[in-house]
């Protein structure tokens, strides 16, 4: 494999990984020597700096990570605080309402109720600490529920204190759509 190709692969790998990646791991995936990886990383970072790119290579010990250029920090923090402080979108509010009234609940169940994919919204609600999740098992994913901080912020102690919780949390239409969805998952899993 030639050097530009290795650099390209290393960029892709560091991009998708949120955590520092061991150089040995990069070397293994690229099927080259660790030395080659080290050299590539240096060249990549020099290139980023020369080009005034928005990325930087962060090296610590035996690992490397991709980050943003420090010169862009103020813009990045504008984006982050905008994301975290913005009002909830309609989809986010819907998802939150389902998690609050029906939690603990799985992602598949939330999606059955809303009829659309919810992975991004769940991530952003988790990110903001509005909901929490706990793992059921490796294969079956997570259970989501409203966070205590969130409940406090709307002035209640537990989900049971939500208006009409007794009635709404057991709504028949919802029970039915979940039952149908369960059935479909069992029967037509691969259609």
């Amino acid at each position, binding site marked *: 494999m030639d050097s530009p190709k290795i650099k390209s692969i290393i960029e892709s790998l560091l991009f998708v990984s*949120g955590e520092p990646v061991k150089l040995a791991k990069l070397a293994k995936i690229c099927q080259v020597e660790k030395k080659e990886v080290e050299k590539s990383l240096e060249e990549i970072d020099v290139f980023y700096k020369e080009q005034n790119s928005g990325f930087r290579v962060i090296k610590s010990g035996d690992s490397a990570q991709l980050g943003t250029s420090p010169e862009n920090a103020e813009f990045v923090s504008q984006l982050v605080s905008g994301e975290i402080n913005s009002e909830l979108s309609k989809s986010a509010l*819907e998802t939150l309402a389902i998690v609050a009234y029906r939690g603990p609940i799985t992602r598949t169940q939330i999606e059955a*109720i809303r009829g659309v994919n919810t992975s991004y919204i769940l991530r952003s609600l988790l990110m903001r600490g509005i909901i929490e999740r706990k793992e059921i098992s490796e294969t079956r994913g997570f259970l989501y529920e409203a966070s205590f901080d969130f409940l406090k912020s*709307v002035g209640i102690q537990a989900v049971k204190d939500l208006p009409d919780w007794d009635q709404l949390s057991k709504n028949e*239409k919802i029970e039915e759509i979940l039952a149908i969805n369960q*059935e479909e998952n069992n029967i037509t899993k691969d259609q």
Partner: protein
Amino acid sequence: MYNVKVPKFEGPLNLLLELIEEQKLNITEMSIAQVADDYLEYVRGEENISLENLADFISIASKIILIKSRSILPILEVTSEEEKEIKDLENQLQLYKKFKDAGGEFDKLLRSGKRIFSRDYLLGVSTVFVPAKNLNAFDLKKTFKNIIDQITLPEKLPKEAVRDIITLEEKINEFQKRLESRVEFSFSQMKESAKDNIEIIVSFLALLEMIKQRIVMVEQNSLFSEINIKKFKALTIHGQPKNQINN
């Protein structure tokens, strides 16, 4: 509940195209006429078609029958509206084929493994609880109630949509009863008793079907003259036709 038995052909265009492609034909009026019998046979025999989809199958069937009729019977007059219907079906089928083929290309792309990966949302940014602005418990209740209202449970078969469609079976049964009371009657009599064009078409289809099943035989002495329908003489020998519906 959803009908979880999935029929082999999901829609009428899917079926029609498959039949045409099976015979390695191009999409033309001629080739539609050629596969008409197979189409109708499938619609009659497939039990897994949901009632709702059946309406779609029958609606296309009526156009196919029109095309078939014209190819067999030059005397059949076709209104300009029907002419357009025929052309539209051809166009629709060609368009449908393009997207079906494009779907096949997507399948290849999906299998090629050349996917693009992205990063998770705000990866590496630490979580802090930030209360949602201007939100109270009653907003949640209102939102949740709206969601409940918007849930559309899978239909309960939409009977109204198909109630008025005369099925092939009904028509065949009706003809058989008539044949029992009168040994012979003409196609124009049959046409007169029809409520609308669709029913004429279904009648004609039923007629073709009965000829095929040897329930009846038809006579036409000269081109454009009356078509006479008679009970097939060998009926008693052949016994019940295989697809006959017993009420």
